[in-house]
């Protein structure tokens, strides 16, 4: 029984970390994978989703609706940001990163000015369940389900819809897609909006588990970056295995040495991975299967 208990505990931790990494990095990964832009305002889109979700949930909107609204709000902001800023910087990818950092500063500090240093959150719903003598938060299981659903949904979106086919064509051969009559500008706009909405979704989903502060986005950033770096440029091939491996490493280290070493372990993994596999997992996987 004790063995089952600790095994299940480990599995639960793994699932929890896995869900966090998937949900946190999805938006960043989609934007980077499709457009080559690292969105340093990723954390602020997450914050946006969390704030909208919490505000709506507090006035009585059911949580699933509130989360959806949070995602939509972040996506909407993303489309505007793409229009006003990112669109002008496609031929200068490094500058677009710097620009998103400027946006991040403005957003964090602007929220601090207008909404104060903290906002009342919503409690974690659904309570907890007793499994083999230990209590586990049911909401965490919901998050695990959401992560799996998110992966599946993105796969379907990019491999089995018209949008996905055009989007992937646009990344691989922008000129060709353009010549074939694809409105590449609109494609990039939609993609950035989608990435922002996914970030908003992350914020919405994790809003009930976190303290609402303007800098809350920073909590997600390191893990998202690390996943994208380990995954490599091709997000569809690399991200999912990267998340699995990283979740395994982080869960292991956290279980044995504590939270902090989990994070340090992730960073060390990244630094070792870039030395051994410069193209990330996706570069490596593609290299061996070609």
């Amino acid at each position, binding site marked *: 029984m004790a063995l089952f208990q600790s095994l299940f505990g480990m599995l639960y931790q793994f699932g929890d970390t896995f869900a966090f990494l998937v949900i946190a990095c999805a938006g960043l990964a989609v934007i980077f994978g499709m457009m080559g832009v690292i969105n340093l305002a990723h954390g602020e889109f997450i914050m946006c989703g969390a704030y909208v979700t919490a505000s709506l949930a507090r006035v009585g909107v059911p949580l699933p609706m509130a989360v959806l609204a949070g995602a939509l709000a972040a996506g909407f902001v993303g489309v505007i940001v793409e229009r006003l800023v990112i669109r002008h910087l496609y031929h200068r990818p490094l500058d677009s990163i710097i620009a998103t950092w400027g946006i991040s500063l403005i*957003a964090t*500090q602007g929220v601090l000015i207008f909404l104060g240093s903290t906002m009342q959150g919503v409690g974690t719903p659904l309570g907890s369940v007793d499994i083999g003598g230990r209590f586990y938060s049911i909401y965490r299981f919901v998050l695990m389900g959401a992560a799996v659903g998110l992966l599946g949904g993105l796969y379907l979106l990019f491999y089995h819809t018209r949008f996905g086919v055009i989007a992937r064509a646009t990344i691989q051969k922008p000129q060709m897609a353009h010549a074939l009559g694809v409105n590449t500008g609109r494609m990039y706009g939609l993609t950035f909006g989608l990435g922002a909405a996914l970030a908003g979704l992350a914020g919405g989903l994790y809003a009930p588990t976190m303290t609402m502060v303007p800098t809350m986005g920073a909590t997600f*950033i390191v893990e998202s970056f690390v996943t994208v770096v380990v995954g490599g440029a091709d997000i569809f091939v690399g991200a999912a295995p990267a998340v699995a491996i990283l979740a395994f490493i982080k869960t292991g280290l956290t279980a044995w040495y504590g939270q*902090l070493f989990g994070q340090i372990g992730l960073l060390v993994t990244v630094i070792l991975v870039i030395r*051994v596999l410069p193209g990330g997992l996706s570069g490596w996987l593609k290299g061996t299967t070609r």
Partner: protein
Amino acid sequence: MTETSNGTGSSQPRLAFLRRLEGPQTMGRGPLFWGAAAVAVMIAVVYPLMADAWTVGNTAYFMIWTFMAMGLGLVWGYAGALSFGQTAFFGLAGYTYGVLTLNFGAAYGLTIVALLLSVALGALFAVVIGYFMFYGRIQGVFIGIVTLSVTLVMETFMSQTAGPQWRIGEARLNGFNGMSGISPLTVPWPGGDLVLFPGPILYYVLLGLLVLCYLGLRILLNSPFGNVLVAIRENPHRVGMLGYDVRLYQMLAFAIGGGFAALSGALYTAWGQYITPSSMGLTAAALPIVWVAVGGRRDITATLIGTLAVLYGFQALTIYGSQYALVVMGALLLFTVLVAPQGLVVAGMNLVARLFRRAQR
């Protein structure tokens, strides 16, 4: 054609390196530029005589940051590797200086030793990170993410060192609140040690250091080493195909940049006598990018002027609250990237040069 002088051979070879103060990698040449530079230094020298001690100490504070900015200019503007995590080396050196001086005291010039060790450790750390990045052949965007992750993880790490078990010798790391009560720089002096509290003496020391580092960087950038760095920025593949080990050059540039950030960090800690984890946080990491981008990353003079100007503006705005100042910094960064990507100071300098040339005709 053969008469074209390339300016070599004639003058004394012993001072040949001084000729590298001017060159294609740095803006500004000729008597007019150096005259203006001399006037600027002269004004800086007499300035403390006309200002109160607090203002002078505050200006010294501005100068502390310029080292990190110039180091980032070298790494980003010249070598083409956009590092978001210079604050990692800043923070490491700050903490190192604190730990060393809290343990060994300030007598016998030990603070100077602590300063040098901190800078060396910062540069060494940059070598390690640089080794993994550049020898792993990662490029552009990824360098930014990895360096930013490093500084953020270090911030998280230092924030969690609140417990009494987190101590190095006498020095408690103190978690989120950081270390305080650290000794200022102390110079052994006949008739009693000279303690460099924020004020005129520290100001002059920093001014001297700044002039030295600035001129040293100009010489370095116009040397063959600098030539290779800008060539790597333009076309790393070709540089490799000319027989250079590109990775080594990038790592060395990164180490120098890290050393300069570390110098800022140790000086900052000595100036304020404290260091906190937030000096390695997301906001702190963004500021050097703002200074260097706004000034102009591809010229060391523009970087220096831009950094001082932005720091001054930032502090002026902080009166209304640091969050307002940071919003303006974000907006400034956005504006620069969209309107004058080469930097506002560079744009201004180009304009002056053009007007000057037109007036000469």
